[in-house]
């Protein structure tokens, strides 16, 4: 076996996403002259930030072989809880956000417990969670779209700038880097991958699969909470239907980034690129004056395509030849 060639191929495969991203940018800038303007790109950045923050935690659910469909509702609820704590209860914003985060962790913990200890499929548990979290959000906010005017410290999270760059970017970069380190360089990351790859083998090697999975759902819900706080601060608004379909965007970003939904592999960097792509695609649809209805449509198609490209095994010939051209050595 020629190892250098294999390594070169691997590098090409790793960079494949970048090529696709650049291609996407090129196409969009040709189609719309407004695309490559600073104003537009910073617009894209907002949505990329929210999706990217969500992805940083969400990714652990598919890595351990599960899924978390409750991230969108969780984010919306987080904004509402934070607002209630700060502006109705009157707690200073820092402890209020800490309490909000604790709520998110608790929800994730419940998702984890029900999936692992009761053997209920993760997508059912988290879909149910999505539903009741939405209900709680509606109940607490009375279905209103609440405008958040204070406190200043809280609003600074979304609209403030540091060294000329918006604060949400720092937050996203921070959580993405943290998540990358967690996945690649910590004991938990190793355990998560092992559980997703072969639960029995992991168990025999001394890993506790249930505890690892519960932790994955806690991380997912926590990241969604952070995203919700940033979103509420950015838009100065808390509304139960905010981020309603975000779980689909997050799944798209992660799947496009090469994470397998079957568990055992995942890439935070890939998910970030995926998030940028999702942002570009949505932005492109807007720029091209496509109706908003194209958003879920395109997302659905992209998910299916990405899954087919990620998956080995039975494939129609045209996809196989496409994979070959894209430089994927396959298995």
């Amino acid at each position, binding site marked *: 076996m020629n*190892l250098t060639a294999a390594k070169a191929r691997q590098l090409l495969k790793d960079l494949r996403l970048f090529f696709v991203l650049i291609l996407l940018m090129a196409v969009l800038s040709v189609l719309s002259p407004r695309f490559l303007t600073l104003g537009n790109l910073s617009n894209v950045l907002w949505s990329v930030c929210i999706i990217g923050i969500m992805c940083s935690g969400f990714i652990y659910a598919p890595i351990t072989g599960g899924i978390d469909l409750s991230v969108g509702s969780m984010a919306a609820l987080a904004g509402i809880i934070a607002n209630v704590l700060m502006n109705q209860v009157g707690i200073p914003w820092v402890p209020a956000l800490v309490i909000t985060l604790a709520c998110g962790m608790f929800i994730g913990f419940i998702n984890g417990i029900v999936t692992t200890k009761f053997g209920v499929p993760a997508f059912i548990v988290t879909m149910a969670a999505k539903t009741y979290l939405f209900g709680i959000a509606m109940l607490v906010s009375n279905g209103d779209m609440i405008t958040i005017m204070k406190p200043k410290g809280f609003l600074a999270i979304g609209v403030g700038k540091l060294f000329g760059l918006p604060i949400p970017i720092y937050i996203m970069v921070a959580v993405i880097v943290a998540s990358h380190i967690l996945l690649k360089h*910590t004991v938990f990351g190793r355990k998560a991958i092992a559980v997703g790859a*072969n639960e*029995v083998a992991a*168990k*025999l090697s001394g*890993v506790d699969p249930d505890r690892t999975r519960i932790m994955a759902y806690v991380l997912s819900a926590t990241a969604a909470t952070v995203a919700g706080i940033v979103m509420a601060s950015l838009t100065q608004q808390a509304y139960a239907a905010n981020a309603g379909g975000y779980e689909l965007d997050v799944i798209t970003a992660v799947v496009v980034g090469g994470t397998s939904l079957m568990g055992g592999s995942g890439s935070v960097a890939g998910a970030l690129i995926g998030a940028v792509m999702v942002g570009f695609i949505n932005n492109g649809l807007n720029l091209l004056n496509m109706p908003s209805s194209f958003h879920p449509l395109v997302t659905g198609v992209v998910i299916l395509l990405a899954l087919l490209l990620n998956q080995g095994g039975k494939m129609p010939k045209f996809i196989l030849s496409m994979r070959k051209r894209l430089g994927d050595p396959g298995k």
Partner: protein
Amino acid sequence: MAENSDASEEVLLDCRKICKSYNGPMVLSDVDFSMKRGEIHALVGENGAGKSTLIKIITGVTGRNSGTMVFEGKEIGHDHSRTGAQGLGIAVIYQELSLIHGMTVAQNMFLTKEPRMPVLGIINIRRMNSLAQAMIDRYGFNLKATDVIDGLSIGQRQTVEILKALNGKASLMIMDEPTSSLTSAESAQLFGIIRQLKADGISVLYISHRMEEVFDLSDRVTVLRDGRLVEVLEKERIHPNEIIRLMIGRCLDEKDSKCVMERKGGEVVLDVHGLSSEGKFSDISLQLHAGEVLGIGGLVGSGRTELVRAIYGIDAHDSGSISFQGKPWTPGVSQSIRGGFGFVPEERRLQGIMGGISITGNIGITNLDSIAGKGFVSDRKELALSRKAVGLLNIKPAEPSLPVGNLSGGNQQKVVVGKWLIRDLRLLIVDEPTVGIDIGAKEEMYQTIARLASEGVSVILVSSDLPELTRLSDRILVLRKGRIVKEFAEGAVTEEDVLRASSGILEGGAA
């Protein structure tokens, strides 16, 4: 069924010069095999003798490379398939693989063949139940057609399997180790059924390691060894000792097969006392000394694997005690690993490796304690550790970043063993370590185990491979139906001795 008296002499299945190799070594070479109508025919041989491959060829699961097959006078081509075999009337009794839970006995028996009303294709449930019940009654089974599968015992489920096959008009019924998970009463019942089948003119091909069963039941016995036909024994020549002699074959060469067992006198590392787990094993006591290789023999399903899993701490036990290095020990996987245990499970692909992950990742996961500090893993240490394991066991290709799933079987197994060897090991448990790996890797595995023992590590070796067991072990315990039936500790032991004990023939003669 038998229209004329000489039906029993009619040849049902005739295989000639069957050859098969998967890729490389011949698994079957020039095997002749025939079955008469209405006979009970036992197929015996050690593990790896080629029994299961022959069955797979007959049932169309796998193809043959050369040779001819004639069934009921018709030549069977190379396009023989599983469904084709079913159509011809060749049925295999799986233990419960082919039953549908949640359905009744009758529904299972008539699946896809339900009797229907003349109009609209509506299933005539009453007729289906009465047909099923009639069949059950004809064989005198203790079953109701309307019983739901989920509530039946394993023995009863097997009966349903047989009924289902009978309903498919089977003329040849193949049973692969049918009694391995049955109670003695259930086994006795099964033998009754088999005799009834014979009386109905149905041929039964029976595969078993339990000599007394083969001895009691069979009209003829075919013995395979190393992929070749050794002999076909007629009824009057069937005797357990004779069968075992033919199966082993090698005992003509006394020097090779006779191993001298020596009790090693190091300190006691592991002391198991009266360990029991309901339905798995009972009252197991054993002592393991430093630097000793303790072999555990017995048939598949005798409780060997369950015992070592309980010692390692994967499954809980009901009663009994374990002490490790002189102190009372509560089993638990993490604790075992910390205490210096290593565990190489059976079924490498399902339990041993994480196929999609690199060699480094597979090795790292059991050594997180030594490569990680405060929750962070040191890539450098992990890589160094996996390089060490790769070098130690000569894993090829020696590239730690390769996914383990891409390696050959032998190298996969080396990774599973290797991840323990780089630890401060006190006790290594290996379960069927050489299944499905090539000769070279096998030899290396043996040397590794011997070297470990010489370094003072205690080894528990579970194996169905008798030459392997007798060659490596300092002592052999034989399990049968969850109990220790024999200990070979000092003096000479042959494969034959172990096989006799496993099969229930103690000290010569039938049990």
